[in-house]
Every structure is written in C-alpha cells, then in structure tokens.
C-alpha cells in the first residue's frame, strides 16, 4: 500500500500483492490519513491509541470508539489483515 499526497489530498493506492485484496484507490479525509499514518508507524492498536492520545491531548475513552470504527472499516475493505489488527 502506498499513501500518496496529491495537491494536499491523500490517496491510498494498492500496489503489488495488495491489489485485488482491497480497492485499487481510496481517498482519505484528514482524520483517516492521520489514523492510517499512526497505525502504520506504530504497528499495534494499543500503541496507535497511546500516540493519538499524546498528539491530540484527548482522553482514550473519546478516541477509542473512532479508532475502532476506523480499524473495522479497514478490515472490512481488505486494507487490514487479521494478523495486522
């Protein structure tokens, strides 16, 4: 997967083996881009949540539902494999 920034917009582009497993291209909004970047860089949901808390200053309880919904969406679309979650 490649996260591209084009004219300030963010696109997830499926490359190599990811093609056919998830949509070829998806446009992300700002929150989606932020969550995707954090998840990729941190590797686990727990670490991503900790970092999101640090970056936003929001409590875990308010961040968790949104992040879980996002992860569920990624899994449903094929962007996230079970072992990645």
């Amino acid at each position, binding site marked *: 997967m*490649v996260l*591209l*920034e*084009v*004219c*300030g*917009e963010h*696109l997830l*582009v*499926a*490359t*190599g083996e990811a*093609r056919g497993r998830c949509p*070829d*291209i998806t*446009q992300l909004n700002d929150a989606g881009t932020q969550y995707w970047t954090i998840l990729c860089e941190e590797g686990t949901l727990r670490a991503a949540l900790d970092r999101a808390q640090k970056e936003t200053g929001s409590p875990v309880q308010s961040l968790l539902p949104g992040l879980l919904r996002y992860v569920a969406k990624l899994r449903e679309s094929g962007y996230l494999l079970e072992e990645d979650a």
Partner: protein
Amino acid sequence: MSCGLFSQMKMKIEIKLAGLPLRLRLEHAETAAYFEPYTLPDADADVDLYVTAEDFARDGGPLSDAPGAFQEYSLLVAASSRCLLRHGRVVYHGVAVKLGGRAWLITAPSGTGKTTQYKWLKTLYREKVSLICGDKPILERRGERVYVHPSPWPGKERFPGGPGGALAGIVLLEQAQENTVSRLTAREAVFPLFREFLYVPEMEEEAREVGRMAEAMLRLPVWKLRNRGDEASARLLYETVTEYETI
C-alpha cells in the same frame, strides 16, 4: 533495460511511443499490425517492452478469451505504462482532443459518453477540433507541465489521431438529465482523475510517479460536465474550455 521476464519472444520490432524508442517483443506476430504507425526501424531502442508470462496468466478479464494477438495488444497497455513510468510517461483513459488549438483531455469511466462528445464537437466545430487519441493517450510529465501524445490504442471506433501538445486542461464527464458545467477543486477532482490512469502498480515508485503526474494535471483547470450527451452539451463544453484563457 528490460520491462518483463521474457527474453526471447517470437517477433521483435522497434517503435516510438511519446518520443521514447522501445524494443517491442511480441509473442504473437499478428500483434505487430496494431503498432504499425509507431514502427520506427533503427529507433536505437534500449528499453524492452513485452507482456510477461505473469500478465498473460493473470489476465482473467473480458479479453482473456480473445484471439492471442488482440489479448497481447490489450495487455500491452499496462505493460507500456510499466515501461513508460520510468521515463515520466503513462497511458491514460480518455479522449485527447485539440479544441481551438489547445489540447484537452475528456475523461470518465467507460460508457459515459466521451466518444459521443467528440463526435458532436467534430460535427459542430469541424476544423477547430482535431483528435489526438480516441481512447488511451499517453501523458508525459516534463517538470510541472503535462504533454499529451497519441498512442496505438485509439479505441474501438479507431478514429485516426494526430499530433499532441501541452495539456491545457481536463473535462470530467458525468451523465445527467440537464447540461451543467462547474470548475472542480483538487479535492473533488483527484479521485475521478486518478482512477483513469491505466497502469498496474507493482512497485511503490510507480504509484508515486503517477501521483506526480496527477499533481501536475491538477494544476490545470478541471471542469465537470454533467451532460445529456446531446449537441447542447458539446456546445457547452467547447464554449467553456475555449473561453477559459488563463492556465
């Protein structure tokens, strides 16, 4: 340089696509006919272009039962982009046309009426309209500018194309009950524009090069023409793009 896994194919010809000399290696000799206008003996090509065994094996699309030569010709679209992307070029899905002397791309998913718009434009404005490529032109990025070139994939109508030029802008088509035109922001245009690149990104760098191409394209005006596919919609398209002076 090699753009595939086959090293020995049944036929080899030299062609030039978007100014780039290529050594085209073919599994089916009949495929060469599709590239005849682009054949250039002694082109001094050092880039190999061919459909790989994986490409043939992976092809389960509607053309997979087509005669071998036509299947190879069709698979050469993505194979060409794989080669061309290393040289700042890529195959794109749309009608490339000169309107009032400037090159425009009319793009949309298949079956949305690109060819219909071209036919109306030609009928209405005759010599002020000239086709560059009817279906899959080649785009070339030179710094921040984009150039449009004809290609061996003119579409099923096989209208003859002509010389390309610097891209002046893009028109995205959408079928509608009423004809309206509006200028799109980069946010609105990026996804519909990006999905019409004809390439299969195996490597991250290929996707990034397409991103750079899209970035250059989005510096140009992008219009959305919601249209009925009628004469009035072609007039609206022509008047919009020819009256827009600033690039």
